[in-house]
């Protein structure tokens, strides 16, 4: 599903050069649930960004579903992200001025989906995360766990093959974290390929495979 080959990511400023990822080779199969762990600053999020086509590697190739994306232009990358990938972030990234339902609808706007079906898909996604009774609420009226569930609904509304979750339980207490993890596992059981960055060993243990990074290098 996701194939990374010889990935290297270097951040350059006028004075220093930082090697964030060094020779990463990773193959994530369809339907896998993979967690990425490592100390802060080891390149976990950078790796997730490279997988999610949000950041270009300095070297190496990225293949999504068999397509090499290195030469893709902005429009093609955006289209691929929209159709193949769902993102979940630690800080939710909900738009506070839009209702829960409107937030969940956003990925479909970039597919030019019509109003009525768009709403129906968003309602279905909210139902899957158990938030169908909060559709008209605004993010500020929700708890952290509920916000993350909205973010998951937004990630799955377009029915993507891949879900990339960057510390999805990082801002939640353990009960809420477990709830979110249960939802992710359910999505994985339904066929989604999930890659999750986490600091939590317990959460990582619930995934199929663990990838460990240290100083930008894959150690496991």
């Amino acid at each position: 599903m996701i194939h990374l080959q010889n990935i290297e990511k270097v951040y350059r400023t006028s004075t220093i050069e930082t090697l964030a990822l060094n020779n990463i080779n990773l193959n994530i199969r369809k339907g896998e649930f993979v967690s990425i762990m490592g100390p802060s600053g080891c390149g976990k999020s950078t790796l997730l960004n490279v997988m999610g086509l949000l950041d270009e590697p300095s070297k190496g190739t990225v293949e999504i579903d068999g397509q090499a994306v290195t030469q893709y232009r902005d429009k093609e990358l955006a289209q691929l992200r929209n159709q193949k990938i769902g993102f979940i972030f630690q800080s939710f990234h909900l738009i506070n001025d839009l209702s829960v339902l409107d937030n969940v609808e956003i990925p479909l706007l970039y597919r030019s989906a019509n109003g009525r079906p768009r709403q129906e898909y968003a309602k279905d996604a909210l139902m899957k995360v158990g938030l169908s009774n909060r559709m008209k609420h605004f993010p500020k009226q929700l708890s952290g766990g509920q916000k993350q569930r909205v973010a998951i609904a937004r990630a799955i509304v377009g029915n993507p093959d891949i879900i990339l979750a960057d510390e999805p339980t990082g801002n939640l207490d353990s009960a809420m974290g477990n709830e979110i993890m249960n939802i992710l596992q359910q999505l994985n059981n339904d066929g989604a390929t999930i890659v999750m960055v986490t600091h939590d060993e317990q959460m990582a243990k619930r995934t199929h495979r663990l990838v460990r990074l240290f100083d930008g290098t894959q150690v496991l």
Partner: protein
Amino acid sequence: MMLQHLFKLIWNKKKTHMLLIVEIWASFMVLFGLATLIVVNVGNYREPLGFSYERVWAIGLNTNQDTTELADKVQRIVQRLNTYPEVESVSRMSSNFPFSANQMNNGIEYNKRHVLADHYVTDENFAKTLEMPVVAGKWYRHTDSVGKYWPIVINQKAKEGLFGDENALGKVVGERLKVVGVVDNFKAKGEFMSNKPAYFELVNAKDSWNNTMLIRVKPGTDAVFEAKVVKDIATMVKGWSVEVDYQTDSRKNQHNLVLVPVIIASIISGFLLINVSLGLFGVLNLSIAKRRGEIGLRRAIGATGSGIASQFIGEIWVLATLAMLIGLLFAAQFPILNVFDLQAGVYITAILIAIAVIYGIVTLCALFPSRQAALIQPAVALHEE
């Protein structure tokens, strides 16, 4: 779809955007006012003046303390002026000569149709002196004053007001004014004057007033001749004062009376719009800085860089549209209530100009910030919060 989304986004933040909306609304109203002023004046300017003013001088005579044989003296002056080889034509008229500050108007009526018209008293050489084409009938002569009717010539506007499509010639206006001719336009205050109804009445040779002489001089006639004329008249009529106005200069003065307020209004409006633009630019820059997370998220879920730029331009367009819809409620009252007796088309044109300028300004203000937004790296923006 995206438009609906933007409307929702703006509507849900309406309190935050209220000041911005008021600012754009106020700019729209100012632009509407200025555009109305400009449209009216441009519209007037495009209407022909109706006469020729080059090489025409207005000689104003003031009798001062003199009260004897005034009519005869005026007649002698007319005759004297006619004898100069430098003079092509002389006409005697009332003090409201072209481009002067004086104005006379009268209500005239025909078959219960009432028209308020500018009133000029002139002699038979007026049309010739000002090279005014007569479009129907003829310019009056002294012989037309025989009988109980007094000849008048009306302009096209007065003809439309009094007679509509009917033939005006031979019709009697009021009790004693008989129409003998129709001229096209007569915009005595210059090109920026609206083309108003006007009528010209034959001067009575026995009048001791209506002492302005219009003379058309030959090309090349200069101030030396002006001095000679003033001196000659002063010799003929002791104690009278003589003042010569070149019609070209008087026309410039009349134009300035119109243009100066328009220029001042334009400068003030320009400053206001520059302030509004800078304000908008600052607010948009700040808004983009505050919404980096949202920009990152949108990029992550499918927006292209140009899509982000379009979104920010779209948002300001939505805001401008809301502000202008409120502005339209006010602006629409002007044609509906006929506030300044202007044609609805003037207001509609002014509204369209104001709308175009506002959209232009907000687009310009949003262009740079939205381009900056498009350049934001999603991976960086998403990890800033």
